[in-house]
């Protein structure tokens, strides 16, 4: 009876809450999703694929060309926070995957800046006009630094 009662109490209180699920959520992806203002659940891979920076959908090494560009910037500024460095990379207006669209434009269009097969369908000039009108790279400046 004692075990049954205890089990019932554990169930009532939600024993699953003991599992530290937050540990499994990549912090840098989460930071980027918030910084870009992407809608959707942080737990949903479609909100931002790990291949935004990594080669594999599972993350980890190796990184794609945009990921390597970001890593290089992180090395150059070891005392800077991740959002500041990420914004700095986008503000360079570079096109890491050489698909004709700058990295920041790809963020704006929600395509992958490190994958040449993923790029906006809208003409570059038109997209850039909309991007600049919306605020340009300042859109992704960390809030605290604004």
């Amino acid at each position, binding site marked *: *009876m*004692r*075990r049954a*009662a*205890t089990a019932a*109490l*554990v169930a*009532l*209180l939600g024993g699953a*809450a*003991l*599992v*530290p699920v*937050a*540990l*499994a959520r990549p*912090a*840098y992806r989460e930071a980027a999703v918030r910084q870009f203002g992407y809608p959707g659940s942080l737990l949903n891979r479609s909100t931002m694929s790990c291949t935004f920076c990594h080669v594999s959908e599972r993350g980890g090494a190796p990184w794609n060309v945009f990921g390597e560009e*970001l*890593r*290089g910037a*992180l*090395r150059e*500024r*070891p*005392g*800077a*926070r*991740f959002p500041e*460095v990420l914004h700095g990379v986008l503000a360079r207006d570079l096109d890491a995957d050489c698909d004709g669209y700058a990295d920041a434009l790809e963020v704006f269009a929600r395509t992958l800046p490190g994958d040449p097969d993923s790029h906006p369908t809208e003409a570059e000039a038109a997209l850039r006009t909309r991007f600049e009108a919306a605020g340009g790279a300042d859109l992704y400046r960390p809030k605290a630094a604004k």
Partner: protein
Amino acid sequence: MKRRDVLKLGALAVSMTSGMPGFLARAAARAGGDRVLVVVQLTGGNDGLNTLVPYSNPAYYAARPGIAIPRKDVLTVTPDLGMHPALRPLMRSWDAGEFAWMENVGYPNPNRSHFASMAIWHTADPAQAAREGWIGRIAERIGDPFCASNVGGVSPLALRSDTMILPSLDTVDGFALKLPAGLEDAYERMLSVPRSGEAAFVGRATRQMISDTARVQENARKYRAGSAYPETRFAASLRDVARLIASGTGQRVLYTSLGGFDTHASQRADQDELLGVLAEGLAAFRADLDAQGLAEKVVVMGFSEFGRRVAENGSGGTDHGKGSVMFALGRGVRGGVHGESPDLEDLSEGDVKYRQDFRGVYAHALDRWLDLPSGEILGGTFTGPAWLRS
């Protein structure tokens, strides 16, 4: 069912149905002793080498050309080691001989997974066979589910027990005896019904719980922090821990966490800030205990699930490693650096080779501070540094 079991389940059932925290009620038999162990978890894998810095070791600077703590910045504590500059608020405790570092702590067959390694620290079982946490086993040994609780955030596996539910709370303020409106009289009538045997015992326990709750809540309202806590969530949790202790809840173990130490990138920015949050919070907590006259009764023990690799990575950070440092703070602590620093030129797959099993550090706290049998709670005999004065 034994009388004590009835008491525990009865108290817990009442606490659940009323929304009141059982630990405040303390209807169950009080644990012996009045010393408190506060466990601080640094979640994410704190980098030990940039926390207690081997500033005299060229291998440290060779491995970390971008993120090492410059020698000129460290807070020197020995001819070879210095604390991260963000830990300056703790130097007062260090100078008073009330702050200890335990060097090179880990466990056999290290696991670089956050989840697996944290579970190992929580259960004190590197074989990952144990279901219960080591603090859950403390509660079972004492026979009181209210002798330990988590403050802030998700309840850790360390407090899990197969036979008890240890409380977890976000803030002390939110907890009180709250019956649904209009049910107060009915509740009182229920308690007033004459009963016999175990039912009578549960009834008396419930009344005692209500009485204890009122007393503790009154004490909690009287609490005035004896120091200025910083405006951080971690410091707020520590203030709640101090408030619980000062309110006379009689708990033996209180647990809280500070997260964000998984510094794969931007380590100097992120870890520097986190260590500052840690140090400022602990310094305020320590000063508060002094002001409350409780400094003799409380020690803090801190850990992280693993350290980081010796060499920095390509993102201005470090990846998951193995051994790291633990720390302890309090008037009962034997200050200093305990154990040998890792040999940075003799590594295991790029990681330091741990020398001190963390269970030896736990065992010392159990045997010497909480006066509990470490062998029974940890499932074996473990030795470690004498980091406590008595």
